[in-house]
């Protein structure tokens, strides 16, 4: 009971955090008049709340939230990687439009997801939120993925130039790491992984929304 209440509080906070980001985006847009370079206005809340999502992995590991640990940690790690290792590290990328693309996609998804969890924990889930969670991803997911891929692609030349996070031979410990090749590898890994996750979500949608309709019919 206490765990559920605590989780509800955390989820509420998380949802609130992303609302802050959404509001910040809108305000910045209205102030600036254009949608370019809006990243700087929501940089801090974005970093704080997305990194805070690491707690989600803990929640799944303990068992409070019924999602799978592997899938959740995968998603959270990829987002944290994008925020810190790409957008924060490669400063030239921060003014790109692709950053805005994935930030908007994440913001909308997270607000809906957190309200879904909060309402579920309070046992009072409106159908609209459930529908939104399992339908809007059809547009938002590809949008987010395109934003992420374009950002990584934009960062590549700067990484190569600066030799960012790379170690080369010869060195005392006989180790080398090429961050440029690593980023390319990550981009390639989207090809097998994205369709799997996408169709998994579509399958979930069919299962959950048809289940609800059947319930409604019997009522």
């Amino acid at each position: 009971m206490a765990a559920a209440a605590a989780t509800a509080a955390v989820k509420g906070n998380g949802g609130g955090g992303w609302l802050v980001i959404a509001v910040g985006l809108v305000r910045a847009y209205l102030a600036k008049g254009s949608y370019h370079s809006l990243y700087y206005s929501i940089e801090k809340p974005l970093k704080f709340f997305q990194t805070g999502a690491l707690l989600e992995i803990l929640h799944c590991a303990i068992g409070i939230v019924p999602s799978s640990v592997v899938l959740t940690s995968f998603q959270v790690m990829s987002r944290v990687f994008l925020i810190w290792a790409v957008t924060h590290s490669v400063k030239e990328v921060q003014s790109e439009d692709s950053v805005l693309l994935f930030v908007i996609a994440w913001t909308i998804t997270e607000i809906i997801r957190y309200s879904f969890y909060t309402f579920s924990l309070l046992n009072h889930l409106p159908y609209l939120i459930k529908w939104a969670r399992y339908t809007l991803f059809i547009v938002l997911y590809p949008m987010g993925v395109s934003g992420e891929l374009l950002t990584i692609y934009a960062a590549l030349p700067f990484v190569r130039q600066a030799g960012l996070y790379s170690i080369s031979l010869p060195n005392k410990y006989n180790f080398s790491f090429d961050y440029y090749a690593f980023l390319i590898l990550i981009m390639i890994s989207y090809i097998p992984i994205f369709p799997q996750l996408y169709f998994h979500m579509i399958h979930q949608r069919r299962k959950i929304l048809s289940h609800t309709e059947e319930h409604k019919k019997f009522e």
Partner: protein
Amino acid sequence: MFKRHKSLASERKRALLSQRATRFILKDDMRNFHFLSKLVLSAGPLRPTPAVKHSKTTHFEIEILDAQTRKQICILDKVTQSSTIHDVKQKFHKACPKWYPSRVGLQLECGGPFLKDYITIQSIAASSIVTLYATDLGQQVSWTTVFLAEYTGPLLIYLLFYLRIPCIYDGKESARRLRHPVVHLACFCHCIHYIRYLLETLFVHKVSAGHTPLKNLIMSCAFYWGFTSWIAYYINHPLYTPPSFGNRQITVSAINFLICEAGNHFINVMLSHPNHTGNNACFPSPNYNPFTWMFFLVSCPNYTYEIGSWISFTVMTQTLPVGIFTLLMSIQMSLWAQKKHKIYLRKFNSYIHRKSAMIPFIL
């Protein structure tokens, strides 16, 4: 078997008929010889009625259902009391040829544990009719094949890198620089390690459980082969940097490596001794061989020695990727050692609790 039932019954009927026929003749002497001859001829071969033996051993009848569809696949009857799951699987394969014995997993109830091959029917049967659920476990591979594939790969891959095939390294760089002796030593040690593994798999180890799914083969081969390529790339690279403390570091770690390899070998030989395999394992006791004295301190000294070998190899080559590989192997082996240690603790009441699982006094 069903057909035999039929023939037995008809035989009994015919025998009874012939008995009745003879009684008729005794009562009414030669009433109708023609009638008699007809009867005798139609009665078939006159044989004494086989006495129906009421055997003391009951036979079991096993009904096998598909675990997913819950439909009946077949019924095996005349299963003797002393048969094991292994015999059942063989009979099942004879009855339905597409279910290979090594691919079938039999459960008492859906979702229960798979029954091991050595379990007898008598121990699990509640009545003379037993219901088992069969699942197809997918393409299976024998453990020996897995080990052979796992260990041959690294052996050959390391040698490929050692020979500095032009497509991996830059040709001119490779030709120009002289190689430090530690590179040759590392290749020698690595080859010894895997050749020893291969020979032990072929001649020493006795594998208890027969098969494993194909997926395991692919994953473990990918792990071993991938890491060996990564390690071999750095050690045999033209820009390889020899260890910081020079020859002292190299010789000490090489000697340590050889000691650990010998220790691992002796422990494996000891563990494969007939008393110590499978589930009837009694705990091996140390003997005159100093390498086996590790048994005083630790439950699974073979893992201890193996980690020792890899740590020595890391120190000898001073290469970070080898260190990462050692770390991952140690984590995996410590999990296995903990499991085995718990089994020993549970099984042997007189087990000395001050022993640790893998690393003396620590783990």
